[in-house]
């Protein structure tokens, strides 16, 4: 108020000091900037990233993981074999996203919801990091291993929950932490746990305006999984063109859903059991922003 009066006096009585910055007369507040593009895609590699499909945007995803490189020339370094996931993501609001998918591995169907709780922003009301909640149901539809014993539909179900904590530290570097819980209704043996707790880390480093290196690793504390299963580690390269994002990567996981890559990754980097793979994403705007109508 006092400022307004001073301003008024300044303007009305001393027009001679008219050299001031005119826009400052509006007393503009520092604007608030939502941090954009912490990751380029809604996936880091296998895992979800902090990004959502915008409201009304349909994102069709084709994901491939080939067989391992160590199969050599006769198998064309793994390119002869492949597992695939075809999925569709959709932004219900700018904060809530849903998605469905079908994987060739385990003939699995998956559906998920992801909600942005906090969004990193600078300026007014600054917020140091973004936080999202993620939950998925995955259904394995292949025949039961033992068809003679009583089998229930619930035994086919897997649930995964994640808290995504992400921060874009600079224009180039983004890091995401992912405390994760995988719940399996049915496990193979007594020593395997129904609940698997895991901590994931994802990293994006831009190397040019439209390309970046991505790394994703999940640490599974011991004594939760059967002995043959290992931690999934993936290293990827994102290329962005107009409406597409191409994600190319090397990984020891062949599954593209949580129950698979988190709990059933057998191959190891040390033995050269590395799989080449890619995610291709194409977005379609189904609903235009309201303001433009």
């Amino acid at each position, binding site marked *: 108020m006092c400022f307004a009066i001073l301003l008024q006096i300044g303007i009305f*009585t*001393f027009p001679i000091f*008219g050299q001031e910055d005119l*826009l400052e007369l509006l007393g503009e507040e520092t604007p608030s900037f939502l941090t*954009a593009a912490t990751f380029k895609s809604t996936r880091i590699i296998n895992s979800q990233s902090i990004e959502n499909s915008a409201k009304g945007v349909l994102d069709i995803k084709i994901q491939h993981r080939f067989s391992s490189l160590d199969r050599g020339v006769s198998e064309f370094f793994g390119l002869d074999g492949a597992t695939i996931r075809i999925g569709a993501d959709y932004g219900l609001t700018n904060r809530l996203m849903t998605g469905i998918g079908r994987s060739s591995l385990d003939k699995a169907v998956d559906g998920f919801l992801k909600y942005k709780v906090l969004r990193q922003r600078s300026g007014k009301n600054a917020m140091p990091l973004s936080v999202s909640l993620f939950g998925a149901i995955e259904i394995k539809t292949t025949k039961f291993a033992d068809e003679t014993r009583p089998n229930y539909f619930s035994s086919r179900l897997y649930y995964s929950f994640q808290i995504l904590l992400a921060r874009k530290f600079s224009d180039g570097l983004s890091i995401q932490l992912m405390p994760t819980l995988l719940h399996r209704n049915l496990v193979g043996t007594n020593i395997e746990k129904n609940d698997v707790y895991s901590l994931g880390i994802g990293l994006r480093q831009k190397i040019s305006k*439209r390309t970046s290196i991505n790394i994703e690793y999940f640490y599974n504390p011991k004594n939760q999984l059967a002995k043959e299963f290992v931690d999934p580690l993936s290293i990827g390269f994102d290329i962005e063109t107009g409406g597409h994002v191409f994600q190319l990567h090397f990984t020891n996981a062949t599954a593209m859903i949580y129950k698979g890559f988190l709990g059933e990754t057998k191959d190891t980097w040390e033995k050269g059991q590395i799989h080449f793979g890619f995610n291709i994403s194409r977005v379609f705007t189904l609903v235009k922003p309201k303001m*433009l109508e």
Partner: protein
Amino acid sequence: MKRIYVVLFSVFVIASGNSQKYFSKNAIVRFHSESKVEKIEALNTTASTVFDKSTGKVEFAALNNAFVFEKALMQEHFNENYMESTKYPKTIFKGKVLDADKLDLTKPGVSKVTVEGDMTMHGVTKPVTAMGQITVDAKGVHVESKFKVKCSDFNIEIPSVVKNSISNDIDVSVKIDYNLLNK
């Protein structure tokens, strides 16, 4: 004492008569570019502007990340790759309305004006000239202007892969409903 008041008052009145400032905080900026492949349109309804009728000076500022695009991905590309909005958050114009002293904003009517000044965008400042139309009616003072901007003038690089789908020439239109400042 009374006399002093009278003098002060008249100074006040004369001064305020000379200094008619108009402002808007929700000026509309629209841009449009078209190539054979892609039509790009964006809208910003939160630009700020102040026009000082007495000096003819006009200033304009628009936040780059307040532009809304039809496609969310375009909006992200616009901010991240083309405008680099974290580095250069605002596009600013500072200039002058030519022959502002001949304008009468107290009577209803339409007048054509020319605005000259400097536009600062993407860290580059370039002179810009635009034709505009000022309409005065019962509701206030309204301004409309159209001009062209070249991406290459402002070091906004269009990569060769998308050269065919993104035009270097951008049509900009501005619409302002001015209010008297400190009325």
